[in-house]
């Protein structure tokens, strides 16, 4: 397998609440489109109207338990990615959101202690090879749950569809 990135650096947006659902990440009133740039304008709108004004490319969302519960809309992943979010780090994930994330080759990291070591505005680094989240602002660190081999494979292939194509080619 190729080497995992060790230096994903960005500023944290921390949402401590559990059960942040996909209706909050991208409200259904915007589901009449699916273009990432358009969805990005409304990312996190029903939980934090200031998010889209503050978010910068490469930033990281840090959240509590069961992140992305509710509707299966993949638009939630697209809205976050479109807004520039590189990685979501949550205490735990709802299953469809996690599935949608890795199917898109989008990093969803499970880190039970992330919220204890970072607050909004801190600069953090994600080291996938070491399985560590480092806070550059306060020097604190936390380990995260390593990705399963299957999830890692999907992410490295760039998502489920490229993964299937690669498998089909190697079988041919």
């Amino acid at each position, binding site marked *: 397998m190729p080497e995992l990135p060790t230096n994903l650096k960005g500023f944290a947006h921390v949402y401590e609440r559990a059960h942040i659902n996909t*209706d909050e990440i991208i*409200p259904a009133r915007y589901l009449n489109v699916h273009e990432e740039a358009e969805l990005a304008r409304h990312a996190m709108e029903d939980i934090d109207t200031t998010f889209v004004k503050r978010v910068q490319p490469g930033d990281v969302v840090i959240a509590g338990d069961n992140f992305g519960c509710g509707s299966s809309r993949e638009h939630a992943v697209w809205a976050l990615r479109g807004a520039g979010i590189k990685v979501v780090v949550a205490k735990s994930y709802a299953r469809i959101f996690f599935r949608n994330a890795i199917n898109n080759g989008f990093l969803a990291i499970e880190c039970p202690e992330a919220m204890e070591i970072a607050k909004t505005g801190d600069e953090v680094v994600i080291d996938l090879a070491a399985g560590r989240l480092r806070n550059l602002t306060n020097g604190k660190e936390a380990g995260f749950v390593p990705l399963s081999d299957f999830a890692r494979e999907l992410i490295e292939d760039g998502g489920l569809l490229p993964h299937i194509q690669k498998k089909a080619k190697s079988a041919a």
Partner: protein
Amino acid sequence: MGMTITEKILAAHSGRDSVANGEIVNAKIDLIVAHDVTTPPAVQMLKKLGINKVFDPTKILVTPDHFVPNKDIKSAELAKQLREWREEQGITRYYEIGNHGICHAIAPEQGHVLPGMTVVCGDSHTTTMGALGTFASGIGSTDLAAALATGELWFKVPESMLFELKGSLPFGVYSKDIILYIISKIGVDGARYRAMEYCGDGLKNLTMEARFTITNMAIEAGGKSGIMPADEVAEAYVKARSSESYTIYNSDDDAVYSERFAINLDELEPIVALPDLPSNGRFIGEVAREKMDQVYIGSCTNGRIEDLRIAAQIFKGNKVAAGTRAIVVPATTEIWKTAMREGLLEIFADAGCVVSTATCGACLGGFMGVLGAEEKCLSTTNRNFVGRMGSPKSKVYLASPATAAATAITGTITDPREFLKSAAAKAA
């Protein structure tokens, strides 16, 4: 070691004798259900990859449901893309406006869902269809694209939880109250990644329609699926709608469950889930009689004919309270027509309700009854998250159709048994 229904279905669909919890299998899909919001992005992904043909058009069912009849120009484009795609692919199981319905209601109603199948749809309430002994799970658009192209999809074999329903429901208490009760006990992530399986004599007493309401809300506890063994009730439902053959899977006596629960239905009362989580269920006696601006009866959860009959029984001879709006949304065209023939639509109209055509509509804050800031709605739908039905400053309360109808008449949260008793006395 014994296996659960879910494990047996996933094993049979991935060419295996057995499967273990946590392993990833590639399962063949028997039915893909496609609607207007999550399908167009999947189609776009396939086109980008140069994949112009679905794996098998006969295994796909298409119905527009979320934002139809088209709520705005952008939604019209989505419905148009869906329509053109199904035509180009030669998909014949298509339900156009006038025959349409909310996908999770119309697919079983029209006989497309059979015991032992694997069903996926780009929608979290796909779990509904598990009530027929089917493995049915919600997926995103990339999954949908993969399933449409290959007829297969990856699944992590879930652990199962077993819920034994005992006894029978008391007067005025319905299957919606059962599932709201269960979610209040285990929480919105209580079944995360797991299958919620049901059994017991209390299940046998429930009609198919009542059962769909329970499996529908598996996702509200984070479940991957909700599943019930296909018994005589399920078989009668299926045989009335389909002549196709099917396989019934039952869990072995020594199947392994990660948790077991027993629920005495006789002890239940009407439940209202307070904002902003479906797990905030309280027995109605503990709920303040707050004023409601709107009551909504419909959705894939509670828009079936039995739901409308119960609501009509309560509305008959009564009026919606001044200051409250009541909206009734039959889940499918067939249900709408049955309600018309039975005179239910007239009862609703006379009571002062608005009756809509089938749509997901305001359940997800789309249209046909979205809420303004500070407004409160008691709804028979499945989610009461922040902003779910409109303004992030509005509030949604979840309950059964009976509680919803009683609430519409008084304008405040009301125990339906007060009205059901007088309706029963009038009928006697």
